[in-house]
């Protein structure tokens, strides 16, 4: 059941990104270009998506357990720290430069393998560079 739910989640997410136009980097950059030819469409993605996700979260909390054998999410309310702030600045800069965030990058792999492939490989490299650096620092 867990694999089925996960597959359905991936299908919904991939369809949503495609339908919303987030698989077109120019549309994402148009959304970020508020002082130019602004395309505010992606506000509607968040405005529609967040309340639906909120319902799912509330249902999980009300039930006290999930629909599968997996345990309920428990994330303590964390603090805003330096890695969160610096990481988000770097991510936002990359998002602006390329018009890709991780989901649309992966979702475009079969549609635009040349461009999305380069993006995803570079993204994975960036992730590995970060994780490697962390390991060295902790050692």
């Amino acid at each position, binding site marked *: 059941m867990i694999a089925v*739910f*996960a597959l359905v*989640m*991936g*299908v*919904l*997410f991939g369809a*949503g990104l*495609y*339908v919303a*136009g987030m698989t*077109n980097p*120019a549309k994402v950059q*148009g959304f*970020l*270009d508020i002082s*130019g030819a602004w*395309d*505010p*469409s992606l506000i*509607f*993605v968040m*405005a*529609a*998506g967040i*309340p*639906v*996700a909120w319902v*799912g979260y509330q*249902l*999980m909390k009300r*039930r006290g357990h*999930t*629909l599968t054998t*997996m345990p309920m999410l428990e*994330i303590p*309310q*964390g603090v*805003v720290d330096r*890695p969160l702030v*610096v*990481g*988000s*600045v*770097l*991510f936002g*800069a990359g*998002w*602006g430069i*390329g*018009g890709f965030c*991780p*989901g649309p990058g*992966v979702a475009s792999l079969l549609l635009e393998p040349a*461009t999305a492939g380069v993006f995803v490989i*570079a*993204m994975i490299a*960036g*992730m590995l560079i970060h*994780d490697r650096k962390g390991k060295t620092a902790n050692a």
Partner: protein
Amino acid sequence: MTEFTPVAGAVGGVLIGLSAALGYLALGKVTGISGIIGRGLTGAFGHQNWGLWFLIGLIVTPWVVHQIAPSEHGFQAPGTAAVIAAGLLVGYGTRMGSGCTSGHGICGMARVSVRSIVATMIFVGAGVVTVAVMRHVFGVFG
């Protein structure tokens, strides 16, 4: 310049929201794509490899929808150098900041996480500034 498509945006948003809602309700997980990929790189796709099943759906579905009902959005990307720089920054930044547009922007906002709200404001702000500097200061991408 792209066309304003609020209905397509809202429909897509509901589908993404349903995915995130199922993530909480069925799996007790945050549907955060940078997290799923980042953990997957260490071979940790989670219980019954749920992360891998999710990624298969995420990769295959847009192609399938494109064959059946192609959208009018099209595809227009910057040059290879920009795409590589973007990928490196997105990968490094999302690992450092513990999330991206899905994990912080949709899932975290939905559970009113202060960290996610701050992260979302910062990465949208940084994206806005970056595009403004590229387009209107340096004149990249018209």
